């Protein structure tokens, strides 16, 4: 939670500084983001490789639990694809790439900015932050009307950390392991799926 707030603050401070051009020139003229992204992916890789959770959760769980992140992937992509018909400025591929962040806004918005430009990057940032906020607020409602998986699929990648407490509280502790499994799997998939959609679809 603390991390999310700092990330958003960094973004907002950047926007304000950019708007008033209150910046040293080298920051405006150079583009560091590409090489920073390379470095970032290297370190994200280390983090996933070293995470014993990532592997043990997958080993322990039964086959049908795979269905939960699958629902998130299919549901998000299909839902976003349909929504894209109602938005003039965005095509289907772009909408699907934004939705493929599954709430992991820092990484997905960085990727999308690099590939498709700042406008879609900002849409990805806002859209995925919104996904987290909606899950935090509406999980009890989702669980009541869409079954026990409601909060877990709404949270997407955030079901393993920021949204876990509210999911566990409104769904029951025994579902927390499914939430973590789904969140971990989606977190690992995001850096592969977002560029894949933008490059090949």
């Amino acid at each position, binding site marked *: 939670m603390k991390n999310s707030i700092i990330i958003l603050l960094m973004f907002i401070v*950047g926007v*304000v*500084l*950019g*708007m008033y051009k209150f910046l040293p020139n080298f920051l405006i003229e150079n583009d560091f983001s590409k090489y920073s992204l390379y470095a970032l992916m290297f370190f994200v*890789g*280390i983090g996933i490789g070293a995470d014993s959770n990532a592997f043990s959760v997958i080993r322990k769980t039964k086959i049908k639990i795979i269905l939960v992140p699958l629902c998130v992937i299919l549901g998000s992509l299909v*839902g976003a694809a349909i929504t*894209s018909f109602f938005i003039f400025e965005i095509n289907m591929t772009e909408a699907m790439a934004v939705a493929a962040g599954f709430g992991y806004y820092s990484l997905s918005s960085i990727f999308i900015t690099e590939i498709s430009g700042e406008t879609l990057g900002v849409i990805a940032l806002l859209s995925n932050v919104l996904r987290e906020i909606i899950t935090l607020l509406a999980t009890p409602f989702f669980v009541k009307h869409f079954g026990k998986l*409601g909060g877990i699929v709404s949270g997407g990648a955030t079901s393993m950390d920021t949204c876990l407490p509210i999911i566990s509280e409104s769904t029951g502790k025994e579902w927390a392991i499914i939430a973590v499994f789904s969140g971990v799997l989606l977190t690992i998939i995001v850096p592969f799926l977002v560029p894949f959609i933008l490059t090949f679809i």
Partner: protein
Amino acid sequence: MIPVLFLMTIGLILGYVFRNKTQFILCSSKITTLIIYMLLFLLGIGVGLNKTIISNMMNIGIQAFLITFGAVLGSLIFAYITYKLFFINKNEK
């Protein structure tokens, strides 16, 4: 995007090999956080300098909301069907 996936795979292997070197892993997770802060800060600067985005902020916000709405609703519908078909018997009866 190929170099990105290549670098990530190298990271994955290194992370797995050195998974017991707590100091190294902690350090790399701190660096990850710092790079994310910096990149989001840079994205912010880019957005602030971009007059088209700033003047369209409201419109961009609505697009973001619509995509989120579609994605969440789609996930919920798939999850509802999956829950009824595969999860309800074991956990409810």
